[in-house]
């Protein structure tokens, strides 16, 4: 049960010296560090690709239709995530549960499709050590998959937390933070898909 002071905090913007809620600022700083991580990988990709004598086309070496389906799955999960946040704002617990479960389910679907793709490569004896192209492909998509797993863990935690803390003044901020992270994971894939699979 929220105390009157909690409800006051819920209604008014959090007063911090920066003017931004600390948790939100922290999430954005974390995302900035994540962007640095992925941008160094993208830079390495550019260096390796420019220096390579030849580079296989994604259409030949990779499963583009499956990757396109995975892109649509991840974009859909971004929509369900923002709708889950909308339900928190509307104080609709069942709606939040529905959309959050859809987000988690779509994230699992993404990983299942990805495991099919990896399985196909391993069947054809294609490993990160096979070539520079495969090293780049497995490193970048593998790191992205780790981030998807991280998002599943956080979102599942929020789903269980909602049973008791849905009315907590900080709950909306937590869902917003998880949503920012999840949309970031989506944005990384939006760049990975054309760079690795199509160009």
């Amino acid at each position, binding site marked *: 049960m929220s105390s009157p002071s909690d409800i006051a905090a819920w209604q008014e913007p959090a007063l911090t010296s920066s003017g931004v*809620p600390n948790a939100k600022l922290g999430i954005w700083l974390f995302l900035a560090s994540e962007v*640095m991580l992925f941008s160094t990988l993208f830079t390495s990709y550019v260096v390796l690709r420019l220096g390579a004598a030849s580079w296989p086309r994604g259409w030949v070496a990779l499963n583009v239709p499956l990757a396109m389906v995975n892109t649509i799955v991840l974009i859909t999960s971004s*929509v369900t995530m923002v709708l889950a946040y*909308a339900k928190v704002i509307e104080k609709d617990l069942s709606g939040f549960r529905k959309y959050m479960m859809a987000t988690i389910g779509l994230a699992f679907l993404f990983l299942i499709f990805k495991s099919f793709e990896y399985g196909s490569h391993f069947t054809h004896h294609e490993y990160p050590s096979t070539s520079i192209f495969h090293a780049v492909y497995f490193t970048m998509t593998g790191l992205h998959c780790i981030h998807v797993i991280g998002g599943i863990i956080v979102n599942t935690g929020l789903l269980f937390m909602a049973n008791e803390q849905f009315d907590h003044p900080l709950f909306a*901020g937590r869902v917003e933070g998880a949503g920012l992270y999840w949309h970031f994971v989506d*944005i990384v894939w939006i760049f990975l898909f054309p760079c690795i699979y199509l160009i």
Partner: protein
Amino acid sequence: MANEHPHRVAAAHGHPPPNVKLYIAIFGALIFLTILTVVVSWWHLPPAGAIAVALLIASFKASLVLAFFMHLKGEHKLIIAFLGIMLFTCIGFFLIPLDQHLLRDRTTHTEVKEEGGAPELPQAEPAKPQEAK
């Protein structure tokens, strides 16, 4: 509770109230752009053109997600400033290898032009005949 109106709660988090119709419209645009990216890759454009078009579409998709799903549109200036610094640093990361690549090409070109051909390798001096004592 009347005090917990969604508009007030959304305002407390620093952005406008959720607009489900807008989210669905953005979703449609993202799906359309994804299909467009794949269709463009079938055209077999020259590498530079293919990279430019693919990254342009990807950047537009990312900006839609940032502006509407991440509520960056109308976000606090401090966060915008952080993202500006981040973007500047990222561009720097990308320019470093490109600059090295271009610099290497320019240096090689200049050497060839000045020498009038491939640079000659330094030749070893002929050994002096030893005088018989």
